[in-house]
């Protein structure tokens, strides 16, 4: 393992506290990933990245900054990466998936805030996330009340751009989102010192579309009844894709997809006969949150798809690159991003349609609808989801959890009982 101590020091991180985090991660990776049998060889890339998740990519970002490039830290799949990439900037995800950071967040936020927000704030204020330290600017979005208010704390000493996501999907809302994208582009131009052109934006759209296509290939392989990859491994790939260079991400996903397609031809499966196929829907699973997948996949089931931001919503729908003006391209971006069926919209029938469509396409035996504690939007939408799935004859289990391990036993009982129910 390379020595990143000096880099972390230079980033002004709290090394003592960060060491504690670095000590627990290898155990978690070992327990969740290395115990699996028969993993695809191409997972070696993601195993390496996760083993030095606060080292390898941060070091690349710092090198890029030295060359004058700007790093944009984002929280959500609504932020159009294409704009930043066109301006020679870099987009990175930020930390927020571990219980380690939650107490730090609870020191400044109400306890009944979702763990994702608490962990993000804790990681930022506790100076234990290199990505938060590196980013030149944070880009937030108004997808929930908790985040809106948390940005006021996060943005105190780093420039913060907030994009106002519409709450409905009428034509005028899509136009409004187009204006938001144009405004974001102007701000990003000022930060990067580069000018957006039809050419560089088209090129960026193609780059991100390629990444989406590559991720979709991996997910398509999961539709096979001969399941070539575990849900845990697919989730890790998706989680890391928020942090990686988009071109390399596409290469690695394509390399993995090649192997998975070959596995399907060769009849190599990671599932045991009789394992139930589960689609998971709900709130995002930020790295290193593998709790739900791990319990499901050690309870006689396999996860075949994630209908969530760390899943299909990240790569479904390409951006039309045929426009001839920046205005055309902004509209194409707006239309693509507004197809995202986040629970922040009302009404949100698209999510129900997506879940049913994906459950069928991935041959799911059942759906688990799981939200993070205190996420009112997804929690309230559970009723609509379960009634729609019942009407379609698709079994559904609704769960709520956070980052703590203390409810693992209760979750396991519910999930095992659900699997027993699917077994009849």
């Amino acid at each position, binding site marked *: 393992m390379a020595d990143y101590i000096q880099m972390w020091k230079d980033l002004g991180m709290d090394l003592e506290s960060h060491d504690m985090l670095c000590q627990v991660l290898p155990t978690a990776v070992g327990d969740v990933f290395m115990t699996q049998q028969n993993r695809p060889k191409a997972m070696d890339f993601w195993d390496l990245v996760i083993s030095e998740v606060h080292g390898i990519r941060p070091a690349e970002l710092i090198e890029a900054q030295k060359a004058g490039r700007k790093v944009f830290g984002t929280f959500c799949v609504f932020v159009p990466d294409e704009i930043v990439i066109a301006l020679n900037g870099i987009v990175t995800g930020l930390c927020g998936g571990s219980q380690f950071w939650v107490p730090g967040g609870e020191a400044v936020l109400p306890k009944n805030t979702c763990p994702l927000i608490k962990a993000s704030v804790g990681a930022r204020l506790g100076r234990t996330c290199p990505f938060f330290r590196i980013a030149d600017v944070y880009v937030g979005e108004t997808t929930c009340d908790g985040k809106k208010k948390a940005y006021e704390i996060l943005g105190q000493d780093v420039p913060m751009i907030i994009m106002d996501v519409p709450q409905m999907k009428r034509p005028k809302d899509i136009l409004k989102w187009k204006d938001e994208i144009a405004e974001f582009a102007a701000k990003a131009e000022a930060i990067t010192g580069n000018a957006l052109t039809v050419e560089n934006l088209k090129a960026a759209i193609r780059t991100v579309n390629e990444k989406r296509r590559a991720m979709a290939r991996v997910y398509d392989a999961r539709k096979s009844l001969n399941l070539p990859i575990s849900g845990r491994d697919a989730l890790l790939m998706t989680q890391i894709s928020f942090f990686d260079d988009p071109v390399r991400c596409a290469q690695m996903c394509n390399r993995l997809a090649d192997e998975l397609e070959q596995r399907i031809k060769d009849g190599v499966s990671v599932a045991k006969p009789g394992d139930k196929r589960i689609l998971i829907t709900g709130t995002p699973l930020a790295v290193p949150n593998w709790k739900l997948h791990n319990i499901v996949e050690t309870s006689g089931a396999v996860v075949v798809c994630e209908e969530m931001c760390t899943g299909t919503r990240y790569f479904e729908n390409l951006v039309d690159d045929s426009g001839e003006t920046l205005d055309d391209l902004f509209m194409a971006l707006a239309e693509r991003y507004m197809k995202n069926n986040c629970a922040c919209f009302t009404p949100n029938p698209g999510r129900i349609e997506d879940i049913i469509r994906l459950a069928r396409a991935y041959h799911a035996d059942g759906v688990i609808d799981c939200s993070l504690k205190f996420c009112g939007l997804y929690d309230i939408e559970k009723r609509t989801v379960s009634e729609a799935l019942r009407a379609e004859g698709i079994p559904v289990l609704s769960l709520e959890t956070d980052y703590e391990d203390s409810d693992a036993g209760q979750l396991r009982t519910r999930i095992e*009982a659900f699997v027993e*129910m699917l077994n009849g």
Partner: protein
Amino acid sequence: MSARFGVGIDIGSTCAKTVVVDQGGNVIWRDLRPTGWSSVDTAEAIRRDLPPEITGNARCVATGYGRVSAPFADRCVTEITCHAKGAAALFGLCDLNVIDIGGQDTKLIVLQDGAVSEFAMNDKCSAGTGRFLEVMANTLAVTPAGLCDMAARGAPTRISALCTVFAESEVVGLIGRGTPRENIAWGVVDSVAQKVKTQAGKLRLGPGPLCLTGGLCDFPFVLRRLEAAFGRPVRTAPEARFAGALGAALFALR
């Protein structure tokens, strides 16, 4: 080759229940003991206490939250599936809605055509469980059975707090204001029933009757408040607290 006996051990948070059935599904041995602080020791003690003529020719299924503490079991099945199976056998029905009020969790299970079609469990919170009743009984210096008897003589009283800790403060407040213990007990039992009713709102109940299993099924007043909350009859059976263990024993035969 199937075994002559099926042994079902249901290690709950409060009590460990054991049922042995013969190949005809008839109950031939039964045991109930506190789980205590070590479910591993309890499971081992049960194994030792099983008559040797049974252990020599039996298969064993463990269930309940302590199911993994019985390494000698041939397999584990969750309490949801076992309670459903056991309740179906106890009540002789293929369609029923099981309410199981256990020590630390409350389950609602919908059975249709003999199979579980839906279920719900309370979250981490202990409101609406046996534990809630136990804590409140301690506050009123009676046993849970005593509390239920007292409640039957009480007048309607509302305890509105959902959390056990806050509800306990509310009960202490009622005591301070001189509210008769019977009325407080009435409120405690009704609070359990209301919480169970709320939980049922998340499910689509099936066409069968409501049946109560678990440790509270011997208390008639609990049944009455549940009937009032649901607005329909709630059945129970004398052995209903063994439903999970019976289901496990029947699974062991398969």
